[in-house]
């Protein structure tokens, strides 16, 4: 039998979550196809250590998005401090190639002036808009009657939130104390069998004089 068979009896879903019928396909064409109503993006400086998977343009869109999805608020570090767009680029470097492709298409769709014009009468790219217009575009995607636009909003929001709140620099703003100190053992033995004695751990860990609450016998 041949290895890595093509999907049997299934319809390919090349464009995944955005390709929902005719309208979804049309939206994607606007985002990833030729820029029928081309406007420039505002490029931003790429991270010093380079980009993993995003292009400069995609990085610029993500940067603009992160500023609006995580606006400045006292007690929280700014997105430039956390380097949210860079963090998102690193996250995307770990995802399946199909998910990466879809996210790239979504970023360009979000940036593209033509859908912004069609849906909101704004003839400019997202990255060049005023912050008020950017907020309005985000709100339109969030509250759209079209599921595909709400899906796109949800995907972008999730990525940016993950990129931001993955940083422990955000903990203070939430009053989150972090994990308990003195518990994690970075040198704990890793047992792989092969006749070696099974160490404490692997189900036999015992707390040195630590209180337990489940009635277990230390």
């Amino acid at each position, binding site marked *: *039998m041949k290895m890595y068979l093509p*999907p049997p009896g299934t319809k*390919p879903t090349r464009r995944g979550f955005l390709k929902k019928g005719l309208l979804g396909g049309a939206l994607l064409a606007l985002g990833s196809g030729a820029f029928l109503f081309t406007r420039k993006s505002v490029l931003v400086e790429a991270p010093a250590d380079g980009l993993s998977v995003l292009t400069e343009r995609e990085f610029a869109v993500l940067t603009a998005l992160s500023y609006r999805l995580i606006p400045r608020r006292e007690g929280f570090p700014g997105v430039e401090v956390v380097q949210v767009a860079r963090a998102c680029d690193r996250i995307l470097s770990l995802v399946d190639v199909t998910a990466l492709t879809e996210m790239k298409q979504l970023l360009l769709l979000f940036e593209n002036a033509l859908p912004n014009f069609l849906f909101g009468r704004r003839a400019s790219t997202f990255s060049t808009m005023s912050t008020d217009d950017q907020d309005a575009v985000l709100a339109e995607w969030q509250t759209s009657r079209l599921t595909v636009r709400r899906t796109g909003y949800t995907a972008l929001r999730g990525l940016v939130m993950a990129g931001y709140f993955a940083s422990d620099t955000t903990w203070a703003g939430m009053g989150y104390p972090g994990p*308990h100190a003195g518990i*994690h053992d970075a040198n704990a033995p*890793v047992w792989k069998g092969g006749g070696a004695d099974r160490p404490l751990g692997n189900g036999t860990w015992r707390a040195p004089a630590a209180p337990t609450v489940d009635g277990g016998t230390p």
Partner: protein
Amino acid sequence: MTAGRIFTGDELTKDLTLECDVCVVGSGSGGAWTAHELVKQGRSVVMLEEGGYHTRREFDMTEPRAYQHLYQELGNRATDDLSMTILQGKSVGGGTTVNWCSSFRTPERILKHWRERFGIETVSTGVLTPHWEQIERRLHVAEWPLESINANNKVLWDGLGALGYERGLIRRNVNNCLNLGYCGLGCPVDAKQSMLVTVIPDAVEQGLSLYANTAARVLDWDGRRVTAVRAEVLDPVSKKPTGVKVVVKPKVTVVSGGAINSPGLLMRSQLLSEGRVGERTWFHPVMIMMAEFEHEVNAFHGAPQSVYSHHFVDRGPGKMGFFLEVPPVQPMLAATVATGSGLDTLELMTKLKHLQVMLAIHVDGLLPDEEGGTVRLREGSQSRYSIKYAFTPAHWEAFRTACKEMAKLQFAAGAKMVRSLHLAPVTLKSAADLDRLDAAAWAPVQVRVATAHQMGGCAMGKDPSSSVVDPHLKYHTLDNLFVVDGSVLPTSLGVNPQETIFGLARWAAGHIGQAV
């Protein structure tokens, strides 16, 4: 007896061909117990696990590390339209490495339904009870003491008491638990009695060979027999294929990849059961309500799940039931699950210490017209699937009812504000505001739906024309292929599924061994 070994991707640098009695694909709740029982019978067993071998050395209780290494698709698995987020484990130990330790035996009413609707006579309370007793002993399953529940669970307990609803304390599979609260990120002290630290090492001591970072891609089969399992080795860091191939030639194959990956493996192998593979997938869809309290809740610390209510689990004919529990509330999970504008989310997160979160977990698959979810292959990917889920009017009725009931419970326990997880959140100031939820948008991608329980897709049943495996978990048209995991469940359960799968696996290992 020859001691077994755990191999990881960095050690697998040359193509391998292995012969054995049984190849088990997957190391979670189904695969681990099956392999454990088979090695005890003296069978030679090779286990393949796509995820990595991560242990307490790495379990530093931080979210980014955990989601990257311990969850499918970095915790981002979801239905195609993102209407449902799917939290699913991916490492040695599978979901048991990251679940919240809740241990329930299968409810009798569910087994009765399977018997009457699907002709499943093999699996009964009487048959499974001796297995559950052994399992509970090994995994130290015991009720969590009321005096040790955290404030997040206490809200549920108090609310249930105030409203006179049924309530109970959850039995947890822990030993010497320090009540830290980071079960979902990998237990840093091995107190959680997951497969990673119990049954798998037990089996390795008795001869199991476990290949981590080794993804089964396709089953070769000829006539009525599986002849080989073809796998490829993944880099432990990048998770990308290294080019090294592993071929296992077993006498019997057991697929235990869980309710999404097992159907995926069968579909890649052109084992489709006339399209039923990947159909009728059940998710226990979860509704979530967040509440703010005057006092600190600190829901990020303390045993995550210790209180439950089955008060609404059976709501009568035509209505979908739900049961109530709570989740841990660590920052990254909370912020990504929360809805509303960016500023709104930041405001919410400033109240993290005072947030209480409640879950209503819906029992899908029991209503006559439910189709559930569908899993299909996705072109260009070996690990990401096309997943769809059909919400019905019964879902939306139950979701709305559940959100109201959760808000009632939270206010009864003293909440000063409750909010829904709609894209435009509904904020309630008191129980008098509950009707505002009726006016909210109840539609896909209008309100957050999540799942941590994946079931079905390779349903067991007596009739080959309506199921994938028979009541002994054998694939209907092949003589040496079994599926042993949550994918065989013909409906959802109405309880957290790990112990049901443990029991099925330990029971099934008996006749699987005889098939060698």
